[in-house]
């Protein structure tokens, strides 16, 4: 992998982020520990020196130079902790009181804190001191021996250092593990995508079984692939159906035109052949129009025309239209419709879907049969039922009945394109509802349920 590729690696970025966060957290913890231990000791020392300085300042104000000298000597005498450092010098830096042999040359300014090396009983030690300027050119140095605290700070520093080294190692190891997990997970998805791109649509992303976020992602991807597969199968099936169903009328039209071209001996015969061929071609156009209509409905573009409506007059219109057709066939169309059927959706589409259902029912009902059209407004929405006494659809084929170009065995001998129920299904789905096909014992009962959302504005 090139340098550029290395920096583009998301796995590496995740690993680096993990390592940096862990190291930063450890550093922050170490800093806090330092502040709460060694820092606390330093702050206590400084507070003691400030309090000492305040007391000596008061003695200077009350007793002047002699009083200050006595106080310093007293405090040295009473310093059981053996850590006090004092030095009072005059304007010529001559030593007046205290336990330092001379004023340190490196301490010139009053105010800052100094780390002063001192020698105690022949041993080197360390003191933390602060200088104060007194009136008259006098200078006072106050401090504490912090050698023990410095050693403690050294030990603490060592411990924190080793802790940081260990954390650094753990961060590195953890980063490598994170990177490995990330790469292995993505490798699974990548391999599946590669196989599908190569044409093997049966491949799916493997699940680890842990049910974690990666498994959820894999499930979503697999569901997406399944849906794509179903859509591809549908497209393939529709393509095949179009080719199969249209071949016959196109061939028939061609044959009639060819026959007329060869054998028609009068204009009248030729006109009749052309009219029959035109009718065949009109049937083909009607099939394409129906396909385009279904595609338009499935695209959802008609949803913008949804509004509150009263479906009762729409269904009455359908019943009236098909009542005459049914009568011609010797079938009774019984409509049981309430006066008002409040609903929500596209009235024209709903009317067309119901018309398709009634048309099918009338077409497949035997003479003397009855087609029932019932509708009701329920709390869940519109419920429209069309039932007939025809041959019905076998239970095993009902699932396929709403596919495009489906033609059951009983429908082979009747005219039709096999797109009626597909359109009804598309209309139901567009409205968020569903189409159910049931056995009417005998016959078929089609139930179209169209929900009415409570919060939809008219």
């Amino acid at each position: 992998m090139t340098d550029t590729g290395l920096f583009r690696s998301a796995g590496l970025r995740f690993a680096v982020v993990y390592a940096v966060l862990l190291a930063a957290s450890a550093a922050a913890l170490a800093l806090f520990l330092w502040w709460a231990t060694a820092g606390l000791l330093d702050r206590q020392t400084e507070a003691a020196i400030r309090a000492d300085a305040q007391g000596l300042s008061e003695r200077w104000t009350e007793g002047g130079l002699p009083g200050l000298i006595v106080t310093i000597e007293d405090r040295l005498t009473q310093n059981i902790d053996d850590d006090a450092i004092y030095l009072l010098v005059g304007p010529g830096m001559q030593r007046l009181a205290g336990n330092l042999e001379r004023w340190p040359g490196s301490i010139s300014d009053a105010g800052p804190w100094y780390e002063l090396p001192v020698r105690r009983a022949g041993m080197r030690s360390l003191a933390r001191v602060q200088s104060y300027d007194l009136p008259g050119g006098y200078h006072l140095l106050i401090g504490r021996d912090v050698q023990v605290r410095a050693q403690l700070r050294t030990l603490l520093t060592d411990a924190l250092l080793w802790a940081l080294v260990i954390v650094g190692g753990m961060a590195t190891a953890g980063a490598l593990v994170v990177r490995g997990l990330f790469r292995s997970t993505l490798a699974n998805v990548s391999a599946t995508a590669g196989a599908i791109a190569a044409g093997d649509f049966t491949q799916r992303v493997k699940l680890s079984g842990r049910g974690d976020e990666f498994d959820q992602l894999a499930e979503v991807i697999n569901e997406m692939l399944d849906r794509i597969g179903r859509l591809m199968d549908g497209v393939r099936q529709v393509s095949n159906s179009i080719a199969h169903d249209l071949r016959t009328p196109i061939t028939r039209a061609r044959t009639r035109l060819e026959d007329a071209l060869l054998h028609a001996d009068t204009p009248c015969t030729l006109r009749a052949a052309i009219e029959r061929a035109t009718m065949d071609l009109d049937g083909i156009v009607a099939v394409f129009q129906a396909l385009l209509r279904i595609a338009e409905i499935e695209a959802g573009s008609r949803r913008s025309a949804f509004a509150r409506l009263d479906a009762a007059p729409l269904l009455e219109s359908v019943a009236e239209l098909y009542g005459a057709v049914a009568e011609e066939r010797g079938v009774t169309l019984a409509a049981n419709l309430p006066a008002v059927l409040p609903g929500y959706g596209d009235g024209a589409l709903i009317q067309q879907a119901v018309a398709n259902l009634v048309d099918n029912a009338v077409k497949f009902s035997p003479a003397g049969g009855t087609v029932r059209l019932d509708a009701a407004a329920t709390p869940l929405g519109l419920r429209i039922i069309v039932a007939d006494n025809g041959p019905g659809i076998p239970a095993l084929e009902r699932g396929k009945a709403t596919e495009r170009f489906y033609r059951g065995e009983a429908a082979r001998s009747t005219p039709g394109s096999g797109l009626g129920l597909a359109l009804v299904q598309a209309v139901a789905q567009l409205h968020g509802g569903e189409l159910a096909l049931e056995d009417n014992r005998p016959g078929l009962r089609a139930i179209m349920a169209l929900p009415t959302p409570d919060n939809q504005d008219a």
Partner: protein
Amino acid sequence: MTTRMPQRRVPVGLLRAALCLGFILVVAPGPVTGQTAVEVTTDTPEYCLHLLDMVSTMVRQAEQPPPREITDLSSEGQRMCDHGQTRGGIMRLRKALALMQRSGD
């Protein structure tokens, strides 16, 4: 009181110095003075004798004999100073002085 620190390896020393520097910048600001150590004069045998004289003077001036604890501390401090354990002896003599002052109060 001193504690001899164990020998450190160079890399650890360098890392420790770097870490110390970082911490010092945060929690312990302040310059470190030059390397010439200044002698502390209260760790010397002379100061030990000075404290012993103070204890003796206070014992003599006291109206009542001092408690045994004070005499023990004084004797122990004197003995440690005589044997070169100056800082230990001074510490005990300071305690003896503090107890004398407390009993006088």
